[in-house]
């Protein structure tokens, strides 16, 4: 019974005993080892490339986040400073003095389409845009009503000035894609009235910076509010519209330096 087995074992040993067969076996094993090593290396490189890609995207997002945050913080700061300017806050402040103060502030702010002082009821008291004064605007369109001392950011509004959201009369025509992001700061004048300073941030200032930062990259970017609403900036390479997430992915504390808006870069 064991004879055929012995014969097979002996013939196998004899086959292995031949040097050429041994070389073949070693060769097969060696090539297998090489293939395993190559696969492991490729996998490792892929993981490293992914890690680098994520790190690079995170770095780009930090740059974009920093620019977006600085833009809106500077707008808030400018409004805060204007809200304590005698030309704007004093009881005797007339619209012409207010307008001069707004124009002076606007000269140094290269990301604002314009500035305006609006009454709580929506009447534009003074504006850097000619023809805006005395127009009544829909306050709901510039974001939630701010209380004195508070700054509030609105969503993207189509148009070039506050006349595009006027209540009466036809809104001022603007080419498609032209819009602004309103930042409002409420304050109380010396006469006791609540007034709103409104800064009209030019979204193109954000998208232009994003475009330049990502020009040679394969990434896409979007600026979003904490509520998850993307600010669709026409002309930019933004792939998303509307709401990006239901709950805020980060709080003011956890989002590095972003007091206004988190910015995302995706590879």
């Amino acid at each position, binding site marked *: 019974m064991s004879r055929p087995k012995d014969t097979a074992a002996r013939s196998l040993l004899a086959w292995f005993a031949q040097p050429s067969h041994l070389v073949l076996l070693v060769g097969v094993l060696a090539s297998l080892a090489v293939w395993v090593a190559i696969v492991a290396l490729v996998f490792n490189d892929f993981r490293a490339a992914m890690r680098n890609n994520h790190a690079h995207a995170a770095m780009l997002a930090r740059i974009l986040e920093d620019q977006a945050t600085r833009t809106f913080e500077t707008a808030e700061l400018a409004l805060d400073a204007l809200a304590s300017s005698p030309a704007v806050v004093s009881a005797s402040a007339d619209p012409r003095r207010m307008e001069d103060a707004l124009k002076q502030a606007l*000269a140094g702010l290269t990301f604002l*389409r314009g500035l305006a002082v609006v009454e709580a009821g929506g009447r534009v008291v003074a504006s850097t845009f000619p023809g805006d004064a005395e127009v009544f605007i829909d306050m709901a369109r510039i974001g939630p009503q701010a209380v004195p001392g508070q700054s509030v950011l609105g969503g993207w509004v189509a148009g070039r000035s506050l006349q595009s959201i006027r209540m009466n009369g036809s809104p001022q025509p603007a080419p498609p894609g032209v819009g602004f992001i309103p930042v409002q700061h409420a304050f109380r004048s010396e006469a006791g009235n609540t007034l709103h300073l409104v800064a009209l941030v030019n979204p193109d200032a954000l998208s*232009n910076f994003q475009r330049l930062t990502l020009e040679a990259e394969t990434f896409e970017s979007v600026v979003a509010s904490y509520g998850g609403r993307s600010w669709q900036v026409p002309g930019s390479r933004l792939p998303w519209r509307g709401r990006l997430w239901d709950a805020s992915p980060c709080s003011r504390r956890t989002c590095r330096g972003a007091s206004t808006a988190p910015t995302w870069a995706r590879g």
Partner: protein
Amino acid sequence: MDLPMTRSTPDPRVRCTSPCSMAAGLLRGLATAWVLWAGCHAPALAGPVADRVQAAATVRVCIWPDYYGVTYRHPRTQALAGIDIELSAALGQDLKARVEYVESSFPTLIEDLNQDRCDVAMFAIGMLAQRMEKLAFTEPYMKSDIYGITTKSNTVVRQWADIDQPGVLVGVQAGTFMEPVMGERLKKATMVTVKPPATRERELMAGRVDVFMTDYPYSRRLLDNADWARLVEPPQPFSVLPYGYAVKKGDERWLATIDSFVARIKRDGRLRDAAGRNGLAAIVVR
């Protein structure tokens, strides 16, 4: 090269050769007095600038220090550079005079020259009819069309045809030749005149204009230095304007001096070389 800068002086000697009555003599006397007065003052129109430059060995050159590629003061180093900085230095060498730069601008150019704040304006001045009425110009040494500059991400203006459309805001620098040209040519868009301290670049970045119009030198330099800028070229010549140097009217000798300088730099290659160094070779008038 030394240039003769002499002035012609009319002969003030006036003699009455015919017999005349007392009244006629009185009238002639008055006429003679007028001729003598005019004779004394006529040389003042013949070459006061040339005389002053020769006497002081200093030529005061009006420049606009914001003109990229032409007469540009670097904001950090404060060093002046550009084709007309090089050519004004060449003018100083030719006249054996020291060059003194006087800051000017297109809106103040006519007043600066006519009020003798400078002897010659050398900053690629467009030879507009309005300017030629009030100033004397040399032969042109450059020429330029009008170009649009917008941001790379701007969706309103993508091509030349998008500029003259309803609701589009087109910026022009106050006092530049684009102001009257665009004022006349824009039918649907709104022209926004940008006055200092505002700048066209800042107005564009802020979205207060959608595009601003400029000339070849400014557009090229802007494209070299501002990575956000995008050039919008006219598909065919839109409004080509020759550029020359301007002097105050009434001093023909001084104009001839500057004109001969322009002819020399064209001939000896200094214009071509300076234009090449400043990226303006394409618009040189040979």
